[in-house]
Structures are given as structure tokens and as C-alpha cells.
């Protein structure tokens, strides 16, 4: 262990040297592995800034993922995400009580494994996106009624506050963050990573333990046109309003199991619903009601006015180790549904267990096992129709599922290392492998191995 710790120290020191004088000023303040942030307090400057109402944040997530078997191509990728944020407390800066301003941006590097090796829907990484430098959030928030209500206006991300499970959020597969029932079904993936879109969010906490939130977002984060939406909105600065209708969502949350030492809540239930005003194409039928696979079809998908769905999230601490704040066994369940006649994924179920502090002397590490299941909507009927009408044997999409095992090792308060294993079943929902594979051959189930490093500067 001393050698490992020494090696880790050396690695961090090298990283610090590369980053210039970031950590130098505060080096003497606290031992490297004891301080809260890698770059320390900048000789007191960070705290002075916070006291004055200016809070700067920077995180870097780097990972390598590999699919030694399965997928449409075996490959190994590297991907990185630098997230830089600035929070301004306008009460301190401008004497504007209970108001704040927040902005953050992403620098995304590398390439994603799902896009380049597996071809699946439930992307294997929360940071998978096209390499780019982009604006993410940029909003103003006003709190009122003794902080029991707040209004946030500006460019907002859906996955900042909605459909969040506190125990699923630590997994690496993207669907445990922003669920695929949003990122696959909504236009351009909706206001989920890496997108945020113009909108407004209202939240109220009328009584203890209850919050109700409602938001309206621009319907499509990317302007119309061919190609990848992450290319069409390459910098996050399109600021589209009224583009592609409106996406609205509301969520009721109740938290319980208050932990006596930290006052944090270890369990909670959320119930949510959403509605999108745009027109959504039928995955199976044309405007005459015929199957799109039929030779008689006009090839124009039927259009449905609007789209909607509902979800339920349960987080529960099952067993808390005595005399500890948050160590123990916890479980999560997320269930979301949407109409099968206008959504590629019509049902998503995520469930899992996490155990914090499983091993002696590693009280802050988290071991997690999670599974996600996404059922294919009426697109599966289109696949059946194609077999029927063409006579060509081909896979019929039914579902995609992921099993993930993840271990979050807290090396320091500012550094997490996560070895990760994922099994991807029915990549793409059990779709045909790309050429030159024969159309009858589905993309094989994939094994994914990886390691993520996350550093807070």
C-alpha cells in the first residue's frame, strides 16, 4: 500500500505540474490527500471569494472503456470531461437578496464506446458525447417565501433536478443518470447531457420533506436539419426558444429517513409526469394506417400530436451501519413509461443496490450493482412486419438491458477511482449488426470493462 500511495501521489503531482501553479499556493495548507480539493484553498483566495459571493468550481472526469467481446467492433476508448462552473451569490455581490447566477461549461474530449464499438441505446458512460467545447447551464435563480420557493430562468438542464435517484447517480452507465426514456425518446435527446436548453423551473417546499417542481423547456435543443444534433448545436449557444414545441415536466418528491448526524435524508420517493407539445412520428404505421414495411405504404410515418409519460423513483436505505452517518446498504428503483406508438423506448426499469463502507478501512467507498431494462415500443412490430413482407430473416427488436458492477474508491476527498464492469444485452434493442455483417446477425451482447478517474480541483 505505501508503494501504491506513493505512486498515486506521484501521478497527482505530475498532473499538478501539468496544470501549472493551480495547486502550488495552497500546498502547505493541508496534506495533499487530506484537503477537500486538489488545488486547495489557493492560499485563502477561494474562501475569500466564497465569502464575497463568488464560487468557482472545476472537475475533470477521465475514463478508459473497452469492449473485449461483443458489440459491432472491439475497441478501447479514452474520453474526458472538464466541467468548469461559476456561482455568483447576488445577495453578497449586489445586495440582491436570495438571488444567484450559475454558469458552467464542458470541454469534452475523446470518443464514446457506445457510438464507436457497441451500437447500443443505453450509452455505457455518463460523459459520452461528441468532442466539443460547449456552454451547459446558464441561469438566474430567485428564492422567495423564506426560501420555500424558487424560480430558475435561463439555460437549464433537465438532469440537474428531475428524474434523479440519489443511489443510482453514482453508476457510470448513462441511463442511471438521465434515463434513456428521455435521451432516446425526446427530440435530439432532450435537455439532457450534454445539452441544456432555455427554460424555466419553479420549485416549492411548502412543508418539511416535500418538494414540488415544475419546468418548461424548449422542445428541441438542436435546430432542425440533417446530421447529429450535437453537431447542429455544437457550442450550446443556440438559445432556441419555441423550437420543436415545448417540453414540460412536474415532479413531487418526499424524503424521509433523516440521518441524525448530518440531517441528510437517506430515503425518498418521487412521482413525476411530462408532456411534450411537438408532433411525434409513429414508428410502425404510415399516414394511411399501413405498416411502413408494407410495399403499399406511402413511406410517410403517421404523426401523433404530443407525447407524454410518467415515472416513479424510490430510494431506500435498507440498513445503516450503527454509529455511522451514511454507511450501509441502500436500494433504488426507477420506473418510467411512455406510449409505445410514438417512442422507441416505451418502458424503462432501473434497479440496484449500493453498499457504502463494505470493506474495513474503506468506509467511504461505494460498491454498486445496477440493472437497467429498456423495452422497445412498436418499432418491434415494424421489425416483425419487415420479416413478414420481405421474407428476409432479421432480428426483431425487443429490449436492451445493462448490468453494471461499479466500485467507487474514494482515494482523497477530491479524487474518485472507479473500476467498472458492464454487460450489455441486446445492444440497440436486438438490432442488426452494421455491414458487412449479414442483416440476420444481431449485434452481439457486449462485455465492457473500464476505469474512471474523477478529480475536483
Amino acid at each position, binding site marked *: 500500500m505505501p508503494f501504491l500511495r506513493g505512486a498515486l501521489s506521484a501521478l497527482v503531482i505530475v498532473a499538478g505540474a501539468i496544470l501549472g501553479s493551480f495547486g502550488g499556493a495552497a500546498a502547505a495548507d493541508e496534506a495533499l490527500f487530506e484537503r*477537500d*480539493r486538489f488545488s486547495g484553498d489557493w492560499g485563502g483566495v477561494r*474562501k475569500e471569494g*466564497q*465569502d464575497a459571493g463568488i464560487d468557482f468550481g472545476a*472537475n475533470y*472526469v477521465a475514463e478508459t472503456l473497452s469492449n473485449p467481446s461483443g458489440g459491432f467492433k472491439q475497441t478501447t476508448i479514452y474520453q474526458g470531461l472538464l*466541467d468548469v*462552473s461559476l456561482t455568483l*451569490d447576488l445577495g453578497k455581490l449586489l445586495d440582491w437578496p436570495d438571488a444567484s447566477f*450559475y454558469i*458552467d461549461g464542458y470541454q469534452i474530449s475523446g470518443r464514446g464506446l457506445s457510438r464507436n464499438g457497441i451500437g447500443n441505446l443505453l450509452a455505457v458512460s*455518463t*460523459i459520452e458525447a461528441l468532442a466539443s467545447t460547449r456552454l451547459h*447551464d446558464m441561469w438566474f*435563480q430567485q*428564492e422567495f417565501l*423564506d*426560501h*420555500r*420557493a*424558487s424560480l*430558475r430562468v435561463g439555460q437549464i*438542464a433537465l*438532469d*440537474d*433536478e428531475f428524474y*434523479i435517484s440519489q443511489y443510482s*447517480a*453514482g453508476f457510470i452507465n448513462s441511463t442511471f*443518470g438521465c434515463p434513456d426514456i428521455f435521451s432516446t425518446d425526446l427530440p435530439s435527446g432532450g435537455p439532457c*447531457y450534454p445539452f441544456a436548453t432555455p427554460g424555466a*423551473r419553479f*420549485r*416549492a*417546499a*411548502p*412543508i*418539511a*420533506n*416535500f*418538494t414540488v*417542481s415544475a419546468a418548461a423547456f424548449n422542445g428541441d435543443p438542436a435546430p432542425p436539419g440533417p446530421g447529429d444534433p450535437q453537431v447542429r448545436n455544437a457550442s450550446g449557444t443556440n438559445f432556441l426558444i419555441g423550437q420543436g414545441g415545448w417540453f414540460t415536466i412536474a415532479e413531487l418528491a418526499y424524503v424521509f429517513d433523516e*440521518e*441524525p*448526524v*448530518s*440531517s*441528510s435524508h437517506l430515503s425518498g420517493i418521487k412521482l413525476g409526469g411530462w408532456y411534450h407539445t411537438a408532433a411525434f412520428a409513429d414508428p410502425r404505421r404510415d399516414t394511411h394506417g399501413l405498416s411502413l414495411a408494407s410495399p403499399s405504404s406511402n413511406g410517410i410515418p403517421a404523426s401523433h400530436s404530443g407525447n407524454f409519460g410518467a415515472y416513479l423513483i424510490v430510494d431506500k436505505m435498507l440498513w445503516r451501519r450503527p454509529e455511522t*452517518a*451514511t454507511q450501509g446498504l441502500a436500494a433504488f428503483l426507477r420506473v418510467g413509461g411512455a406510449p409505445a406508438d410514438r417512442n422507441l423506448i416505451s418502458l424503462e426499469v432501473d434497479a440496484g443496490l449500493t453498499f457504502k463502507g463494505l470493506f474495513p478501512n474503506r468506509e*467511504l467507498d461505494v460498491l454498486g450493482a445496477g440493472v437497467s431494462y429498456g423495452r422497445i415500443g412498436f418499432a418491434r412490430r415494424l421489425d416483425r412486419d419487415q420479416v413478414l413482407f420481405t421474407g428476409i430473416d432479421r432480428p426483431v427488436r425487443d429490449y436492451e438491458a445493462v448490468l453494471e458492477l461499479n466500485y*467507487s474508491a*474514494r482515494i*482523497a*476527498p*477530491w479524487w*474518485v477511482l472507479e473500476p467498472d464492469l458492464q454487460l450489455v444485452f441486446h445492444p440497440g434493442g436486438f438490432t442488426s449488426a452494421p455491414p458487412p455483417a449479414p442483416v440476420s446477425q444481431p449485434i452481439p451482447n457486449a462485455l465492457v470493462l473500464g476505469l474512471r478517474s*474523477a478529480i*475536483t480541483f
Partner: protein
Amino acid sequence: MKVESEEGLPGFHRVDLLRFLVTQMAAAGLADWRFEPADNNGSALDRVEWSFKLNPYAGGEVRNLTHTLVYERQYGVRRPITIEVRLYLNGQYQTLVEKQAIIRGGPDDPELASVVATVTQSLLGPTGAYRAIDVGQRPTQPAR
């Protein structure tokens, strides 16, 4: 005078919280009183009991993709809380001071340090709640 806290406060382990409270109470500059953290051998006869309750809060969050411990350990955002402080002498309840505040939490929070000193003054200071009992008067203004 022993200092106790029934409930915790985000950003602190229990022992650290008592130490922090004692330091900030001493900073209130009350020469007649000396404070020290309570031990675990039951409630002392002469004691100040602090309790902190999170008020309903609708401030919201932003997504954090790193899950580093600093985000879990640090309170990080300003939160409204209600602070109640009870004074016991010879095992008998004497008086109570309540105050609401907005804090970030943690030992480096200047607002929290300030409100602890203010509440201590309101409880034990020359014009505080206990002195008002002592001379048979109510305090001129309830501490809120």
C-alpha cells in the same frame, strides 16, 4: 458549562460540531461563562443544548458527474435552518432562544460562526434571555 447538541449539523461530525460551538461561544466574549464540550456520560446538570433543524428549502441543485467526497462532505449551498438553544442549570430548564439563519455549513462558514456567537449573546449576554429571568424581566425583543 457543558455544551451539547442533540442533533447534528451538515458539514460536521458530532465531536467537531461541539468543538466548533465551544469556540464560537467563547468568541461571544462573555467573561462570566466558560464552555466545554459535553462528554458521553449523560446530560450534565449545567448545560447549553443546541439543536439545528433544516427548514423547508426549494433552492434546487445542479448535476455533479464526479461524485467526489468533497460534494458529499461539504454542505456547499446556503440553507435556511432554525437554531434552538436551551439553558439548563442544576438540571433545571431555564430558558430558550430561537433563531433562523441562512448558512453554508462547515467550520469555515462565517455566517454560521456569527450566528452561534449572536445566539450565545442572546441567551447569556448582559441583555440576554437568562439575565432577563435573573432580574425578573422579559427580554425587550425576542431573539428571532
